[in-house]
């Protein structure tokens, strides 16, 4: 069945003629993704009221189909005027040459400037010194932990360093050897990259054309995490924790690293007697500078280079980035505001779970900004993490193979860089 899909797609690519829907000159089309995409339509009347004559047509796409849909739309030249992307996709669309550089717009803007945003987050949108996307909402990972469990283990505050995290995990495990301490899913690349970045690894080297996973910083981080599996501090089997909320309630593990959406989920899904037994904290760090780095995630808005209504599209971006609208949007869907000033609003400032996110957002780093990055992390890091957890490979062997696989994936990038004289 899937092969048929390929055929359909290819035939579409061949026979598609530019189907530019030539709506009138004052209607801009906007593609938005997921729950935020659904909710954003409620803001449109306000925009149309503030900007008489401009109309916005929103199309909502689910996250699972978004990436495919955007690329297919690019191939068939049917991308909208302005659209949302996950901020790690920006390099891909830049490589496709389909997004407009926004530096000039940002310079002239009376609503936003580059300092309005968190530095780490904005930098994910910057490639070779040019900004291609404006952060819409942000996302980073922090530590969620069980206050009662760590107290019993003798910790009055959450761990601030790697050593403390490991020591605390050992103590939790000692209290109840049936359970685990730290949730470190082998089917997620994120913790491995996160700890590598914290330890100062650039992940790739030579203008992002070779893997640098065997390098000391990443190797140390990987060895550190592998200890959690070897010492029984983190569950190796992901099928056993299909429902993290239940596992967290049972203290099957008592700490995990996850994102802002789980604040809402924990509030809704954990039983009432659990509600004052959990908290969020910024991430521990390998050295004494607290907190350690986290990843700069979130969604950005980009403008289609071939759009004829770029100025209107920019107006719309400014609207979505304004303080009032960002705040309203936070109240609507709990999407974390990308504009720093919004975090002074009482609803955010007085939320005890949100403070950790604010601290953490000021200390984030972007992953390498190349189109191949997602393939490297999803296909390779995950695979080798699993192999190491299951003791099929030693850390050293795994990282060597990881580097060699990465180098293979980057072969074409090296060819292009050489062609352009950048290597």
């Amino acid at each position, binding site marked *: 069945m899937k*092969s048929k899909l*390929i055929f359909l797609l*290819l*035939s579409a690519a*061949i026979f598609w003629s530019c189907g530019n829907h030539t709506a009138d000159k004052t209607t801009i089309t906007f593609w938005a993704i997921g729950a935020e995409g659904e909710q954003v339509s409620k803001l449109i009347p306000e925009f149309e009221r503030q900007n008489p004559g401009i109309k916005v047509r929103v199309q909502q796409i689910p996250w699972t189909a978004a990436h*495919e849909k955007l690329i297919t739309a690019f191939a068939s030249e049917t991308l909208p005027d302005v659209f949302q992307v996950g901020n790690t996709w920006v390099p891909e669309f830049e490589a496709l040459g389909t997004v407009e550089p926004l530096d000039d717009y940002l310079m002239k803007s009376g609503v936003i400037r580059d300092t309005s945003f968190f530095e780490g987050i904005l930098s994910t949108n910057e490639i070779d010194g040019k900004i291609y996307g404006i952060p819409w909402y942000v996302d980073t990972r922090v530590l969620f932990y069980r206050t009662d469990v760590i107290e019993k283990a003798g910790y009055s505050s959450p761990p601030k360093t790697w050593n403390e995290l490991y020591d605390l995990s050992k103590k939790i495990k000692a209290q109840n050897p049936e359970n685990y301490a730290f949730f470190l899913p082998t089917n997620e690349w994120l913790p491995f990259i996160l700890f590598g970045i914290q330890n100062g690894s650039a992940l790739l080297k030579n203008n992002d054309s070779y893997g640098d996973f065997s390098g000391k910083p990443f190797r140390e981080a990987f060895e550190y995490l592998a200890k959690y599996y070897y010492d029984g501090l983190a569950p190796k089997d992901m*099928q056993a924790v299909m429902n993290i909320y239940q596992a967290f309630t049972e203290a099957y593990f008592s700490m995990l690293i996850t994102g802002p959406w789980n604040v809402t989920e924990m509030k809704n899904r954990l039983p009432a007697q659990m509600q004052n037994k959990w908290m969020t904290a910024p991430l521990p760090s390998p050295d004494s500078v607290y907190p350690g780095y986290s990843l700069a995630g979130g969604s950005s808005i980009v403008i289609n280079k071939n759009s004829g209504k770029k100025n209107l599209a920019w107006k719309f971006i400014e609207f979505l980035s304004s303080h009032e609208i960002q705040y309203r949007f936070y109240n609507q869907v709990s999407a974390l505001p990308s504009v720093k000033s919004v975090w002074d609003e009482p609803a955010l400032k007085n939320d005890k779970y949100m403070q950790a996110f604010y601290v953490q957002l000021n200390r984030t780093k972007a992953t390498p900004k190349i189109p191949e990055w997602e393939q490297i992390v*999803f296909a390779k890091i995950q695979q080798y993490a699993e192999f190491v957890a*299951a003791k099929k490979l030693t850390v050293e062997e795994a990282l060597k193979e990881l580097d060699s696989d990465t180098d293979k994936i980057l072969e074409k990038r090296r060819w292009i860089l050489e062609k352009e004289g950048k290597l």
Partner: protein
Amino acid sequence: MKKTTFSTLALFLGPGLAVLLIFFFLPVMAAFILSFTDFNIYSLGNPDYLRFVGFDNYMKLFSDDMFWTALKNTFYFVIAGGPLSIAASLGAAILLNSKLIRFKGIFRLTYFLPVVTTLVAVAIVWRYIYHPRYGLLNYFLGFCGIDPLDWLGDPHLAMPAIIIMAVWKNFGYNMIIFIAGLQNIPEELYEAASLEGASAWQKFRNITLPMLAPTTIFITIITMIGYFQLFAEPYVMTQGGPLNSTLSIVLYMYQEGFRWWNIGYSTAIAFSLFIIILIGTVIQFRVQKALEK
């Protein structure tokens, strides 16, 4: 009777052929050509970044561990799951065709239900059945004194778990075809055999099986082709894990093509699968022809 002219031929066959040509043969040709290039996300943005690489993609397959793993898993699934599924269908068909059974309609419907249920929904329910801590299957195994098994988490058990689910999901379809085949066997043959004192097994061996041969050939080939295209079960239940033990060829092709946009490489995988299925089908035809003689 008038002789068929070219224009009438074109009129009747034309539309169908045109659709086939545009939506099947041309894309297949395009894909075939793409399999000799390194078409990926860069080439999509800039045609200058496209290289013809000859047989490189196919050569790369030979040294690609993931491809061999996927190939091995797919063969495992076809060789273990295929016969099991056919045996289950035949067994169910014979039971349901028996005169001793009442409420046949209800049983047929029940056995056929998994076929018409959405696979994704079924797979999610089965993930709960297989759950190592709360799963129904381990609960029942507990009655027999068997320790809980980690069905989808253990690399040795994950594929058997997928096979069990796939057999359960698919046997109803073949069962219906077998029932149709069974009903075409003349009753007199069995009556004659009974008169001559044949046992039930002798009747099955010497009447049912030979008379079902054409149905069986059809079912084996269809099942084999279908099972080679294993995709949705591991896609929903395991994403190819643990340790790639449920990564199938189509799943690998999907990941390469639609997740990472290595279209050139993924079309090479597709054509390799096509050749494997072709060889498999030819072998089956040969074997069955030899058996008939």
